[in-house]
Every structure is written in structure tokens, then in C-alpha cells.
């Protein structure tokens, strides 16, 4: 009996707390508006990037992935690890077992060795990489990585295109987005000057990035397939490669999705026909189940109501 008044009172109290929050918030905003931030006004959304792997029927462009691997190997791997990817996975890029073995272990292409233990002395040592190894990291640990990079930790790249809003387009924009700070920004925000050891990049969330521009000159790598290695091309290729490292399942997923969708579509049609047969077919009289929500009936209801002058 008292339940509803008590609950109504509690509801009014919560509403009061919220209305007080509303007015105090609005008052704070209008009496003391928050200062504009350079990172809000000058931050840019990623540039559009179109890759062969886009869309429901997307497949990887293997030649592009191979070029991307080359950029990663020759440029990015100086600082960034790729811990979740194994050399054997490179088969998906179109390499043979022998090529993968040579890539990992010959020391000509992939130069970082894998930490190991000397079987004779038990001391720590390194050995050549095997196809079964994951890509060894450039630094022994995070402390070493920070020490070599002005105390900034280069993130692992395995999942990078899934771990950032914008994905591959973000990676591509960031790699090609380094520039001088706009004069306009410094005029409006004199305190927002990019600190030493950081680099201005409008695609980075706070605009100032510890990573120096990694791709600086055309021809920085020499592509085996003869593609002209412009900065833009290299950035695109390595972005495409990082889509593969983050989603090696992509092609299988797209193919399996199509099969599953076709299967379920056929199942839906058959099950629908079965339902129609059970509800409306057969020798029995038609079970006309036409609930009040059926459009036809709703229209009738509306007409009848209008005639009777009932609201709603």
C-alpha cells in the first residue's frame, strides 16, 4: 500500500540529484567554460585508404603484402616488434617453405637473432631464426626499448590495425602525416609548441609523437618487384601488411562467411515454407492467425476508432 508513494519519493530524489547535477554542470560550463585545446582543433581524422582486403569479398594483394613485409623488415623492425606473427605464417604471403627458411635464418634479409641458451655452457646467447619462431623483437625488453628511444616505448605492431580507431587508414595517415607545426596553431596556442624529441603529426591523438618520421625519402627501400618506392607507396604497403598481421584469418573468414550466409539463407527459406505449410497449408481449414498487430487489422482498427472518435 505504501510501496508506490515510497518508490515515487525515491524516484523524485534521484531526479532531484540529476537535475542538481544538470544545473551545476551548466553553470560551471557557462561561468567557467573549458579552454579550447590544440589537440581538439588541429587533430585530423585518417585519410581514406583503399586496400584489396576491404569489403565482404576482399582478398589480400600478396605482392603488396610482400612489399609491406620488406618495409617492415628494413625500416620498422629497427624499433617495433611483431611478436604474435611467426615466420611460418609468411606462407600466406605466397612464399615457399625454402624461401621462408632463407628469409628467417640466412641473416641476409632478417637480421635479428632469437635469444637462446648455449647448449654447452648454459649461457645466454642468440641463434638464427627458424620458420617456427615468431619474429624476434629488436630490443631485449621494454626497458632496453625505452632506453634507446628517449623513454618512449615503440608498440608491438602485430595487432596495430585492430588496436587503433581507423585501422589501416590510421597507420597510413600517421606514416605520411608528419609535418611542421602550422603557424596558425602556434598563433592560437603559443604554449602548444611541439617539445624537443617529439614530432608534430595531426593524425596522432595529442598531435605530438615520439616516433620520428620513419619513411622520409622515395627509394628508401628497393622493391624486389620493381614497384617505385615512393613514401606514399611504402606507407600503403606496410599498412596493408599490418592488416594481414592483425587479421591473418581475413580471407578464410570472408570465404566461410559467404558459405554460412548461403546455407542460412536456404535454411531460412525452407523453414519459412515449412511454417507456411503448417500454419496455412494442408487439408485442414486455414488457421487464420491474424493478430491485432497485423497491418491490415491495424488499419481497420484505426478506421473504426476514427469513426468512433476514440483517441490513440
Amino acid at each position: 500500500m505504501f510501496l508506490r508513494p515510497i518508490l515515487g519519493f525515491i524516484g523524485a530524489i534521484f531526479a532531484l540529484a540529476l537535475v542538481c547535477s544538470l544545473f551545476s554542470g551548466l553553470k560551471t560550463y557557462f561561468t567557467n567554460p573549458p579552454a579550447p585545446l590544440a589537440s581538439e582543433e588541429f587533430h585530423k581524422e585518417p585519410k581514406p585508404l583503399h586496400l584489396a582486403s576491404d569489403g565482404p569479398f576482399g582478398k589480400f594483394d600478396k605482392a603488396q603484402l610482400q612489399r609491406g613485409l620488406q618495409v617492415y623488415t628494413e625500416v620498422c623492425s629497427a624499433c617495433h616488434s611483431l611478436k604474435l606473427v611467426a615466420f611460418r605464417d609468411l606462407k600466406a604471403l605466397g612464399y615457399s617453405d625454402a624461401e621462408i627458411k632463407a628469409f628467417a635464418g640466412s641473416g641476409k634479409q632478417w637480421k635479428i637473432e632469437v635469444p637462446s641458451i648455449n647448449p654447452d655452457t648454459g649461457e645466454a646467447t642468440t641463434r638464427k631464426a627458424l620458420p617456427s619462431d615468431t619474429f624476434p623483437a629488436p630490443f631485449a625488453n621494454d626497458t632496453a626499448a625505452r632506453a634507446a628511444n628517449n623513454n618512449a616505448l615503440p608498440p608491438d605492431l602485430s595487432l596495430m590495425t585492430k588496436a587503433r580507431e581507423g585501422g589501416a587508414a590510421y597507420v597510413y595517415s600517421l606514416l605520411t602525416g608528419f609535418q611542421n607545426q602550422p603557424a596558425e596553431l602556434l598563433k592560437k596556442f603559443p604554449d602548444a609548441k611541439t617539445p624537443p624529441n617529439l614530432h608534430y603529426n595531426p593524425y596522432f591523438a595529442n598531435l605530438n609523437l615520439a616516433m620520428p618520421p620513419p619513411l622520409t625519402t622515395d627509394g628508401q627501400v628497393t622493391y624486389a618487384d620493381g614497384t617505385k618506392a615512393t613514401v606514399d607507396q611504402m606507407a600503403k604497403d606496410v599498412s596493408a601488411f599490418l592488416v594481414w598481421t592483425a587479421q591473418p584469418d581475413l580471407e578464410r573468414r570472408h570465404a566461410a562467411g559467404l558459405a554460412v550466409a548461403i546455407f542460412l539463407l536456404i535454411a531460412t527459406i525452407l523453414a519459412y515454407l515449412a511454417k507456411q505449410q503448417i500454419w496455412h497449408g494442408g487439408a485442414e481449414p486455414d488457421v487464420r492467425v491474424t493478430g491485432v498487430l497485423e497491418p491490415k487489422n491495424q488499419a481497420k482498427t484505426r478506421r473504426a476508432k476514427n469513426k468512433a472518435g476514440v483517441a490513440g
Partner: protein
Amino acid sequence: MSFSWAKPYEPKHPVMKWLDERLPLPRLAYGAVGGGYPVPRNLNYWWNFGVLAGIFLTIQIVTGIVLAMHYYATADGAFNSVNQLIMRDVNAGWLLRYAHMNGASFFFIVVYIHIFRGLYYGSYKAPRELVWMLGLVIYLLMMATAFMGYVLPWGQMSYWGAQVITGFFSAFPLVGEPVRVWLLGGYAPDQAALTRFFSLHYLLPFVIAGVVILHIWSLHIPGSGNPTGVDVKDEKDTLPFHPYYTAKDGWFAAAFLLVYALVTFYAPNYLGHPDNYIPANALATPAHIVPEWYFWPFYAILRSCTFNLFWIDAKLWGVLAMFFSILLLFFLPWLDKSPVRSGNYRPVFKRFFWLLVIDIVILGYVGGAPIVWWRTALGQIAAAYYFLHFLVILPLVSAFETTDPLPNSISESVLSGDAAEAPVATVG
């Protein structure tokens, strides 16, 4: 179980006869989801989501059990066991993981539609109050299970989500902080929290399955509701569950699974957050911490309280408001006293119902987006309306509303095909 004309189970095959005399399991199934359960003949497609919820619970349990075979519940190994072992090396591991991830989201989509159907058609009203309350228990268990499941990959959002959610308890004076430390097994989420979350994440789905049985059992005492809200009167009003509703649920389930498959295969990360692909790092707080989408409305209510009113500080107001926003639903059968169940015959209630739907969508939008002054203000208005809707408006509407005439019976509304032209039966 419910009506005198329900067909009794008559085993024909000697094996079934033999079994039925010793363990009447086929009899139970026949009465629960077979030809022995009479269902109102006028159910529309909003009534399909209960069965769908059962299907998604099954999908989650099956994919989850296989994932648990490959998952390491250690702070060092969890992230890599998901993102390296399961996603790359386990056969079809990516499919299991994406199916489980998106299965959780679709389970919530289905359950939300199921709940809103109940709100619109007054499914919480007598004699089905317990069905409604057991449903809310399932919903609370789902929230706990989903939250702990989201922690398991041990990404940034996992870690900081665990930090924020367990932080709710520290809002309570005196006991709050010790309770938080006790729940986490430490001062911050770490190995102890991860292992217990894994243990409970494995346990709770089976508890949910148990409460689902109670939910269905209590439903079958009065029988299913229907879009008119009029009670079943005789055999003309019902159809046997099998084959009529098994067939109707069957094709709809296949169609809904098609939508689920398209998201799982073609946009598996659309409903997730990119930050959870960054390994957990106790020293780097994400720019904005958000829970999974199905918690956004409650997160908006939590964040809307920013004012220290009376002797209670803003954080505690937020936590109380959030908890109470769910708990108040348990009182719904006694808040809405209108004798008419279905929103179809309640012109004023109907308008407020759609206002509530819009309100909750707004809360969801505000809860998922970064904080901006106008969005916060919008969320505060929407949160205040949420409480007023259930605790003030609904009791008043149910007291003063003039409802439309109800049809005399279900079969009449169905066979005449027109509810409005039926003879007037004033209720109330």
C-alpha cells in the same frame, strides 16, 4: 501443464513407453516445448525472442567451453592465448572467438527486445510477476557474466573496465574499499582477479541455464501472454506449441542467425573497442574508458551524477542511481496497476512507452560517447526521466488512464480479424 485441454503425452514406440514409465523425461519435454503446451494462437513475432535467447545461451556455452580449452587465465599469458594461440593457431579458433564475442552482443540484443516486449505488452503483470522477476535475475547474471568475460582477454579495456566496475564498491563509505579489495583479491586487478573472474565466468552461464528453467516453469503455470493481454478462455484460443510455434520460431531463428553470421564474419570487431587489442597496462589509462555497448545506458546514468546532494557525494549518487535503475524493475508489477495488460489498448501508456525507448537510446548514446558538456546535460535529463518514468509517471498513468475496449476473447480478435469492432468489454 496449464490448461485442461492440453494434450497428454502418449508414447507410441515401445522404447518410449518403457522410458516414460521409468523416467518421464519425454513427457516433460512434450509438455514444455512440444504438442502438450497450448499457446495463444495470436502471438506476433515479438514473441520469438525468448526462444532466440535460449539459442544464444547455447551458442555462448558451446563456443565458450571450447575456448576455455585453449585459454590461459594468467596475467602474463591471457592476452597472447587469445590473440596469438586462439586467433592464429587453433583450428577455426578465430571463428570460435568471434562467434563468442559477437554472440554476447547478440544475446543482449535479443534479451533487450524480449524485455521491451514484456514492457509493452505488460508481461510483468499478474499472474506473471515471478516470470518477470526471474527474467530480471537472468539479466543481472548475464551482466555479471558479460563483464567478467570482457576482462578475460586482458586488454586495456578489460583491465580498466575491471578497475572502474570494481571501483563502484569503493563509493560506499567505510565498508566500500575493503569490499573492493576483497572482491579483487588485491589493490588493483591482477592475477587473483583474473583467475576468479575466469572461474565465475565459467560457472555463471550454468546458473543462468538453471534460472532459465525456473523462468520457463513459472511461465507455464499461467501459460504465455499474448498481444491482446486477454486471458485464454478455451481451446479455440490456443494452438499446440509443436508444430505451430516450433515452425514459426524455427524460420525466424534461421533468419536472425543470418544477421548474426553476417556481423560475425564481415564486421567481427564492429561492436568491440580497438583499445582491447592493446595488452593491459596498469600504468597507461585509456583516453576514454567505456564498457561494452550493452552497458552504455547504465554507464550514462552513473556518469550523470556530478553533484554532492545532501551528505551523499556525487560518486555514491551515481553508483546508487545505476544500481537502482535496474532494481526498480523488480517493483514494476506493483508500480503499474492498470488491469489492462497490453499497450495496444492503453493509449497514454503507449506514448510513454515509446518515450522510454527513445530515452534509453539517448542514454546509450551518451554513455558510449566521450564527455562533452551538452552531451552530459542531455544524459542528465534522460537519466532523470528514466526514474520519473518508472516511479512517478507509470503509477499515475495506470491510475488515471482510460483504456480502450478489449476484445472478448483471443479467438474473437483473431477470427473476426478486427479487435476494434468486437463487442465492448470495459475493464477497470
